[in-house]
């Protein structure tokens, strides 16, 4: 998947005007943006939470996820999600 927009050394960031937060009434994490809201599933929330918390490269983000999820092989899933999120305008590249 590294023929996409994001490479191991890219730094993903939330798109301008997007906010990531926990929404008690929905019982899930959401992305809020002008006049809208996306409810996030678990994996999406794990990735976006890390993008939101600190600036880091995709490689670092994947390393962190691997620690959190017992070394699971999730590189492809992360890249695929990042491309989709970029396509949806949720995130941008620094």
């Amino acid at each position, binding site marked *: 998947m590294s023929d996409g927009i994001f490479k191991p050394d890219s730094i993903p960031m939330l798109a*301008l*005007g997007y*906010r990531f*937060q926990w*929404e008690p*009434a*929905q019982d899930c994490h*959401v*992305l*809020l*943006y*002008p*006049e*809208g*809201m*996306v*409810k996030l599933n678990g994996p999406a929330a794990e990735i976006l939470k890390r993008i939101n918390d600190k600036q880091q490269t995709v490689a670092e983000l994947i390393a962190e996820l691997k620690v959190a999820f017992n070394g699971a092989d999730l590189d492809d899933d992360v890249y695929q999600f990042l491309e989709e999120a970029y396509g949806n305008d949720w995130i941008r590249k620094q």
Partner: protein
Amino acid sequence: MATTGSENNKAPGSTGGANGMNVRDAIRQPLWLLAELTYSCPLQCPYCSNPMDFAAVKSELTTEQWLSVFRQAREMGATQLGLSGGEPLARPDLIELIREARKMGFYINLITSGVGLNADKVAEFKEAGLDHIQVSFQASSEDLNNLIAGTDAFQHKIEMARAVKANGYPMVLCFVTHRQNIDQIDEILDLAINLEADYVELATTQYYGWAMHNRDQLLPLKEQLERAEAIAHRYQDEQKGNMKIYYVVPDYYEDRPKACMNGWGNVFLTVAPDGTALPCHAARELPGMQLPNVRDLSIREIWEGSNDFNRFRGFDWMQEPCRSCDERFKDFGGCRCQAYMLTGDPAKTDPVCSKSPDHHLILEAIERGRMEAAKPAEKAKPLVFRNPKNSKEICGL
């Protein structure tokens, strides 16, 4: 800046997940709270969707009352807060409202004409947690703008749009289009490119309130729309990746109505300056409304129990042809206010729909607009500007 109503088309989650729920569910949450903080406004837009009799509203909710409304709506699941009016900047407590709303977790949208805004205020709002500012323009050329807005506000707006961007907000510009400015759509878009706007909404005038009163002067002609649409599409292609352009066709020229408010009492709650709670900002003008007020009842009582919010909720209230039409789950039979304004019965099918027996009323309105447009300027009906004097005169206040 009163909402033009154009955001009905993309009410909460309509591009995202929140709307994927089954619309036939029981009562849903008020996800979107539109707080019309005040009817004060330095501008006098003839396309304003505020009620004609706005000058009758004397007492606005206090800061504490607004915060209580915000808190209650938030507890019921609201995430989006729109601050509009009138001109919300006319409220001296705006910054406090923003700060507290942000603490509650709202995503806060300020819908402003930019009059009364300055670079310092934009920075203060940012610091207080405002998420999003939408600046509305009347036209791209200074003269036309000043004519349409009734004041000399244009240069200032451009400065404000720049200040918005300098403070790290996406620059969202809204141009309300109508017959008298739609031919300038290319100039409007060039201006937006010059300003490095991120989003441009070419919102079509929605015919409520003052705009309805001025409809014959505002409704664009078909050939104007065709030209505007072609230009908008060309710019959309050219600006791909830079600037997003939303172009909305006026529903008078469609053969299906808009899914107004995403369904009555479904996700959208408006609170007017005096505390009246409404399922949509135009609903005040419908007959038989009880107009519950947040000063007397809780938001939950109003949302779940009031006659007004239950009146057109779901599908049981519908008449034919909507009642047995498969498309009712998608468009909810259109707009109740439009049905009322055109047919006199708010429970009828929105006449925009080509299946409506009243659809001819739309065609006749278009024809009247065409006849007005053909008159020489000095014979045409003058635009009636939205100001307290006209409000009092016309409504006999």
